[in-house]
Structures are given as C-alpha cells and as structure tokens.
C-alpha cells in the first residue's frame, strides 16, 4: 500500500474492499452451528441422559418431518419466495394415504402421495409464475384450499391406518437408525448435492439473488421458480408419508402449524428471506436447534405450555444475531 514508486504498473491490482469483511459472514455461516453446540453442552450438563445414543436418535426422528418440509422450504426461500401451504399439503397427503394404503397397497399409495404433493406444488408454481400472484398470497390460498380438500375427503373424521407393513416402516429402524430419520438424512444429502453442485442449484441462487440479472443471463427464471414449489410439494408428500406411518392415523388437522416450523428451521439456519442466500446444511442445523431445544425442555420437565416461549425467543435471537453481523442483508 505504501509503494509509491511502482505507480507505473498497477494501481488497480489490489482488491481493496475485498478484505474488509469483518466477522459478519462467519456469524451467518457458523452462528447457528455455534448456538447448536452451546445448546448441546447445556443440555448434556442439565439432562444426564441427553447424550445417550437413543435420545439423539429420538431427536433425529422427531425433527425428520419438519426437517423434510424445511428442505423444500429452503429451495423456495432462496428464490425469495415462501410456501405457506406445506402443512396443508402434508395434511392432504396424510388423509389420502391413510385411505389408499389400505386399498391399493404400500408402494402405489406412496407413489400416488408423491404425485399429489407434486401436483399441488405445481399449482402453486403456475399461479406464481404464469398467474403473477405473489408467493405469499398464492400459497396462503393453497393452504386454505388444501385444508378444504382434507376436510371434505375425511368429512372431518380421522381415518385409522391398519396396514401393518406401512406402520412398521414408520416405527421401524434400518441399521439402528429410525426410518424417518434415515429418509430425512438421505434427502438432506440429495438436496445438498442439487443446490451446491447442479446447474439447477446455481439457477435457484441466481434467481433469488437477482432475478433480472438471472433472466438477462439466460436462466429460465419461471421454470426455476415453478420447480422449487414442485420440490416443496414433493417434500410435503414425503413428510406426509412419514407422518402417516409414524402416527398411524390420518386426521384433517395433521399438518396444522407445520409450515411455520419449517420456515423457522430454514430461517434460523441462515437462509435469507430476501433470497439468494442459504444452505441445506444451515437448514439441518436450524431444524436440529429447534429439535434439541424442545427435547431439552421435555427432559428437564418444563411445561409444554411454556415451551413455545423458548422456541419463539430462539427464532428471533438467532435471526437477530445473523442480521446484526451481516452487511446489508
């Protein structure tokens, strides 16, 4: 910097603003992870059986449904969208599967469930891209609509599931890992590969970071936007199957409130609601953070009524920390 004699060559060679980054990006990247580590330490000190393998696996199983929804939500939010209908889409899949799994067998029922999720997601995507409806409004409408389907289909009554093989899947384990947790972890890896290493993933980030730039660079913006809602719908389908096989009953209130849990996990994990930023790793940490907190409160015997106070505080605190330390976003 002090070199004044070398002016003939290259004054522009130093990317001057490049290094003045501060700790902001690191907090965004590792803040939630740090909070998770902290919480785990606290948990292992206050609840002695917290660190037992069974308990950890139990936490993983508990977060798997919200976790799967949050994976789809991550794609949507990175494009600067939102999907409020995931809980209701999950409900549709739960009640539909509760019926079909007994009439057409496990595998066809699962296949149809995924198609139903994808179709509802596609409606969201088309309404947003071709219809020009804002994501918030479109998916709010879908939330009411899907809930209506579930109520009509069940006439408001829960449908018990008796198919043993299906129930076995939800409560069983593979290689010692609960099946729902295994499904979540596999989808996590797939989502990571897609976002991080595929043309589609790059396009998702580009659309969220700067839609006009993406369009002028030849990214098929509408197709990408449509696709993330389809992904979210499919994830709601998967989560619905996990729900039905774990709980063994299809009720029309199955997914109530899940959309908010999924959004919370995604945002706590560092995905920006303004789009363009976020990772599935972060979303996993976000889901784990909320799961561990709830587990800890259960183990220490805090009243379930008081638990919401903690999770609400955690969500706001985590996001505040990220905002304060990141520049401009």
């Amino acid at each position: 910097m002090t070199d004044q004699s070398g002016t003939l060559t290259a004054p522009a060679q130093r990317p001057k603003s490049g290094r003045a980054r501060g700790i902001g990006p690191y907090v965004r990247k590792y803040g939630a992870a740090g909070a998770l580590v902290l919480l785990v330490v606290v948990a292992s000190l206050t609840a002695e059986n917290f660190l037992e393998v069974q308990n950890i696996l139990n936490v993983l199983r508990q977060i798997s449904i919200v976790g799967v929804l949050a994976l789809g939500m991550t794609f949507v939010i990175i494009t600067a969208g939102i999907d409020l209908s995931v809980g209701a889409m999950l409900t549709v899949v739960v009640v539909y599967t509760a019926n079909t799994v007994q009439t057409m067998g496990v595998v066809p029922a699962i296949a149809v469930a995924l198609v139903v999720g994808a179709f509802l997601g596609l409606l969201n995507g088309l309404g947003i891209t071709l219809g020009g409806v804002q994501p918030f409004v479109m998916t709010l409408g879908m939330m009411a609509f899907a809930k209506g389907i579930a109520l009509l289909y069940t006439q408001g009554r829960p449908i018990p599931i008796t198919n043993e093989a299906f129930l076995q899947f939800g409560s069983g384990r593979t290689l010692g890992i609960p099946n729902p947790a295994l499904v979540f972890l596999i989808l996590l890896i797939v989502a990571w590969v897609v976002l991080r290493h595929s043309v589609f993933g790059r396009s998702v980030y580009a659309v969220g970071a700067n839609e006009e730039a993406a369009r002028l660079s030849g990214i098929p913006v509408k197709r990408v936007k449509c696709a993330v809602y389809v992904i979210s719908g499919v994830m709601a389908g998967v989560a619905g199957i996990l729900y039905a096989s774990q709980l063994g009953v299809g009720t029309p209130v199955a997914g109530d409130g899940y959309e908010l849990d999924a959004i919370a996990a995604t945002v706590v994990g560092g995905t920006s609601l303004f789009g363009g930023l976020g990772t599935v790793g972060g979303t996993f940490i976000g889901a784990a953070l909320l799961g561990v907190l709830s587990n800890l409160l259960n183990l220490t015997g805090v009243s379930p009524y008081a638990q919401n106070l903690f999770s609400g505080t955690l969500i706001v605190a985590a996001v505040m920390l990220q905002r304060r330390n990141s520049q401009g976003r």
Partner: protein
Amino acid sequence: MTHALVELRGITKQYPGVVALKGVDFDLRAGEVHALAGENGAGKSTLMKVLGGGVAPDAGEIRVGDQLVRLRSPKDALALGISVVHQELVSAPMLSVTENILLGRLPRRGGRVLWAAAHSQARAVLDRLNLDISERTEMSRLSLGQQQLIEIARALVRDTKILVLDEPSAILGQAELEVLYTVVDTLRRQGVGIAYISHRLGEVMSLSDRVTVLKDGVLQDTLLVEDLSEERLVTLMTGRELTAPVRSGIALDAPVLLDVQDLQVKGGRAPINFSVRAGEIVGFAGLVGSGRTEVARAIIGADRAPGRVYIDGDLLNRRNPRSSRRRGLAYLPEDRKDQGLLLHRSIRENIGLASLKTRSRWGLLRSSHDKADTQRHASAVGLKASDLNSNAATLSGGNQQKVMLARWLAASPTVLILDEPTRGIDVGSKSEIYRLMKELTDSGLAVVMISSEIEEILAMSDRVIVMRERRIVAEFAGDEISEEAVTRAAIVSTDQVSPGNPTPETNAPEGLSTIRGVVND
C-alpha cells in the same frame, strides 16, 4: 483567499487489512467547487463519508469555521450545514417532486399538511436552481438526470453551506450534464462550498476551482485548476495515461453478424434498422432516454418488440434472453448492480452464470472444469481478485464490470452488446476494457457499444449511430465522426424538426452536413 468553511486535517481511516485514508488534508472554501479525483478505491468516497458524518475517522481533526467538531452521525453533519448527495438515488418515485424535496419536513399544522406552503417552498428551491420542473410532477415521470437534480434540491432545503456531490454526473447524458453544471455554478455563486467527486476528467477541468487527487488513500496533491492539465491529472491519479488502443480498420467484406430490420421499440415513431459486421464496433450515441437501451433489450428478447433480427444471416427467435444467448448474443446491461451481478454470490457463480451448460454434465457441475474455466476467463479479462469465492460486492466497479465481461465471454458470443461499459469505473479499468474490446473485435466478434461518453464513442467506434427520441437520426463512419457532429445530432431539439418531415437534414444546423446517410426515413 476566502477563509475555509471546513477543514479536514490528517484524516486516517483503517479497515481490516486496508488503509482507506492515510493522513489526508482537505479543505473547502465558500463559493468554490473543489473536485476530488482518483481511481476507484483511492479513498474519495471514504473521505466524503468522513465529512458527511457517515464514517468516523481513526485519526485526524475536522474544523468547521474555527471550531473543532466531532461528527458522530450524518445528523451531526447536517446540523452544521453539511449535506451529502449520494450516487444512488433515494427518491420515492410515486410521490410528487414537492414531497421528495421536503421529505420528512413537510410544513404541517395539527396533523394536516399545508400543501400550498409546501408547494411554494419546493418551488422556491427549484427556482433557486433555475430548474424548469413542476413541483407537482410525480417523481417517476422525471428522467434519471432530473431526479438527480431533485436530490440536490432536497439538500438545499436545509440550510446547506457545504454540499458534497458524489459522482452526480455518472448517470447523466449530455443535455442533463449541462443543466447540472449550471446548477453547480449557480450554487457556487451563492456562496456554497461544493466538494465534487467525478470520474470525468473533462468536467473536473472545466467545472472546478481546485482539484485534490487521492491515490490509494494518500493525498497526491491539491492544485488550482489553472495549474493543471488533463494529462497531468491522469498521471497524478494513476501514473499512466488513458489509452484507447489503435484498431485496424475493418474489412468491408466481413460478414454481417447482426442485422436488425424494422424493429419497433416501445414509444418509438420509426422502425430501427442497422447492421454490424464481424470485427466492427458500432457506437450508439444519444442522450439518456433516447431509446438505445430499449433497442438492445428488444434485440435480445428481454422486451417484446415487433421486427426481425438476424444473427449471422439466420432469423433470431427473440422469445427470451435465453434463446438469444444460445444463438450467440450477449448483452451487458448498463446497471451492473441492478441487472447484472449477483452481488452477494461468489465471483465464480457470477462468471459461470451464462455458461452453466458447458460447465456441467447431466445437470451436475463438473467442479474442476468449472473452476479452471472460471479462472481462465477471469484472467483473460484481467480481473484483479484475490479469491474467486468472495462476493462480487467486494469488488471495485471496474472489476465488477470485468466479471460481467468474463461471464459473457464464457458463453462464447458472436455479437456483444455493451451498454455503458465503462460507467463509473476508473481510468485503469477503462483502458483495460478498451483493450479487451479491441481483442474481441480482432477475433471476429461484432460489438455494439452504447455509451453516453462522447470521448469513448469517438475513440472506439468504427461507425456511430445517433439516437434521439427513440429513433435513429444519424449515422457516421470514418472521418465523418466528430464530437460536434455526434453531439449536435443527439441534441437538436424537437421543435426544430417539423413533425411531417423528421429528418435532421432539413432543419439541421450546418455542422450536420457531414451526415452520410439518414436511416429510418
């Protein structure tokens, strides 16, 4: 000499890893225009942020009048009569000019706005600046240049003695520049001290009384403008001279790569027709708002417009930018931050954006290939970045523009449309972009260069097409290209041209006799 209004002494500001300012002195007197010159990253903006209270210096003192002051926030600075007009416009587009000028200080009584008083206050400020803009107009109906002037008007509503203008001219066209210069001159006469940041050397020379040159955060010199020449200024700023490379003339039998026929842009009264040969640079001159960007966007299919575009002889289906890109069209938009870059994504992602297909197999990116290809294009455009994984936002304007070029070169285009390729970037990067343009045309690309900088048009173009009011009004080639001819064609006012016969030839001043052919008639 007049006593200084404000005096900055030994200002030092350090950011992690970078010294932004090192013991810089700067003072401003009543009734003077004091220009700040220097390349991007030289510390001009930081120094002005210190003056405006936006940045606290690590060392140094600030005196206003005779008093030592501490500016903890822009509010402190405003209270002392220091106003900063930033490069970015911050207006509220749906509100009236009055509301924008008086933003946050509309006269009111008992919760009701006194509109009559508000309008007359706004009118008074506009009159003070000799601006012929109605105070009741909605802001969004003004041109960018007029909006910029409203920003200045807003600063004057407060009792401003010291006005900082951060690159006010960067987005203005020739005619708007004249108005801006008049406004600045008017304020100078009224005794306002004006600190003026600019990349345009010509305007620094003609507008200012004194010039301070910064380089890498160090004060090079403060000089009276009489003691300075443009060459000396460039040498102080860079240690180099601004060079446009000498280009060999193009072959007349070179194939036509871009042929535009009967293109109807929105609001245009006549169809657009022109063509560009391989190895040719066609400069598009004209005022801001004359329709040049609209033509570019219509060509690549970003906006719908009737007409035909042929690429290398084949009709282009202008469905969207995607299909145009596949056929070898590249467009670098004028506003790289709003329309070009993913500011908060990595340089690597930014460069790869228009060529994802070649970087992948079965939809998955080939990581090593992607890295190598990105690196190759980054060095081909002379990008100076320590780490391709850092955000595009961390780069200087010049390097950001190089990222845009790298992105499009990676897409292997045959026709390159550059919209204001050197706006707001430093002299060093400018020279490099000119050199790249030469290399690209030498290798057989066709280039369309939209530019509001007349020097750039003159230096780089094989042919110049002038647009006014959304149609092509003149075309010059070779020796016919002159500053006077191009400028005149761009600004001959409408009332001089009768509607029935919109040819500039009929009523044009004598200087236009050099026009070779008038297109679109």
